[in-house]
């Protein structure tokens, strides 16, 4: 746990960049998926957006 925490601390910028990237790209894809009423893809993309937030939450 402490090793993981240290890793997130030392790679703060990379983790936050990945989190931000996920939060910017997935809504665009969600919009496209919603227009095609592709529900499965929307859930997958919502999951990825959630992962972005989990990454942001993990940086001490």
């Amino acid at each position, binding site marked *: 746990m402490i090793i993981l925490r240290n890793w997130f601390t030392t790679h703060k*910028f990379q983790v*936050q*960049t990945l*989190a*931000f990237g996920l*939060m*910017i790209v*997935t*809504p*665009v894809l*969600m*919009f496209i*998926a*919603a227009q095609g*009423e592709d*529900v499965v893809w*929307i*859930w997958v*993309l*919502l999951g990825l*957006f*959630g992962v*972005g*937030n*989990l990454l*942001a*939450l993990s*940086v001490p």
Partner: protein
Amino acid sequence: MFSFFLALAPIALIIILMIGFRWGAARAGAAGYLSALFIAIFFFGAGPILLAYAHARALLFALDVLFIIWAAFLLYRVADEAGAIRTIGQALPHLTADRGMQALIIGWAFASFLQGVGGFGVPVAVIAPILIGLGFTPLLAVVIPSLGHGWAVSFGSLGSSYQALMSVTGISTDVLAPPAALLLSIACLVTGYSVVHAAGGWAAVRRLVLPVLIMWFVMGSVHLLIGVSPIWNIAGFCAGLAGLLVAYPLARRWRSGDGKPSNSPGETSDYGILDRRALAVALSGYTILIILTLGIQIIPPVSDFLGQVVIQINFPEVSTAAGYVIPAGAGRKIPLFRHAGAILTYATLLAYLVYRKAGCYKPGAPKRILSGMVERVMASSVSIASMVSMAVVMENSGMTETLARGLAEAMGWAYPLIAPWIGGLGAFMTGSNTNSNVVFGALQQRMAELLGISVAVILAAQTAGAGLASVLAPTKIVVGTSTAGMAGREGEVMRKLIGYTVLILLLASLLTVMILWIFP
């Protein structure tokens, strides 16, 4: 009742994490978003299509805000690398050595002026580095302009928030302006004393009673008179400009900081000789910003020309399983070349050329300006993306509506007291007076009609509460902390701001009741 507490949970979680546990906005925002998403899906019946469109709407809102943050930070780096921030910081004590007076001029009058011409978070983003250059702590450098510009938000940004309220309610400015302008003009006095108190405690408040009163009288009167006139859209700008003009003679009179007025007009002080040319060059970046903003916003042909390219998406009608309907309509409109962020970018480029022509840069300056910038704004960008998504998911799933209705039903006859707090709640969640007015304007109007009280006064309380409380919004605090070099310490800013904001909102509640007697 259960729904009300569920809807409240994400906001309460953010407040507890930021204030109680001193988490940064990026972490607290992510926690708030995840909780809002969970509650929206499992308790408010938000389906995948609704959520997908909600996230797309949120992306537009987030980009709207991030454009300003990135551009404001770039302007700050261009000015800082040229030594402009340091020069301004060294020059102001020549005008006045009084810390409270410095806070009043920069953090109240200048912040109000910038709010008048600029937009979301620009006053705090621009002023925080200047105050740090003057020797204020980064915490106070964010807190002071945050407090100072809150009263000017509703009629600021060239009246965009006020315009949004009129659009969603259909109430004309003839009816709405008198109570709204009056309420905010009175609140201006409290924000002035709050600025002085934050800067120097009660001793500064006692020392500067008169300058605050004079500046308030001028700014408040101008705000009120122009707010009720046909040119209400420049009320905030004119009030801030009037405040700056009256501040100059006041600063020269209260220049010593010992509490006694001074009449010595010399340019030499304990701080050495003032280099007027260096100061003019240093201020040129911000002068360019002001001229460009005014030119682009006020001259219709320029505004129309730059407003031709617009990013906007049309969204279809969607509804939750519980029957809450989001009507079809266009999302956030982003005029790409007329946006506040675009204007900041133009100002940045011109300022860079002026500073370079004046020989302010050492070799390798462009690389130093850009290096580290992305790293500095990344945490802020993550938190904005999370919090805006949370706010839009809450709004689109009916959680925001549930919160407002719960508050209204709980208060009953005492509703006027809570009206500014509902506006404040919307601004806290979205970081925007405009968004709060869009979300809660129609609800407040309906509540006033049901209770048989003045719709105009309740709507005035809505926009005033939203403007005054918007300074406490995490998304807005992040803007300030990003340029003050204290990203991740947003909880400290919120702790410092919350007491002042609650006091100002309490005053807004009392004023709402009093104004109801005047405009029954």
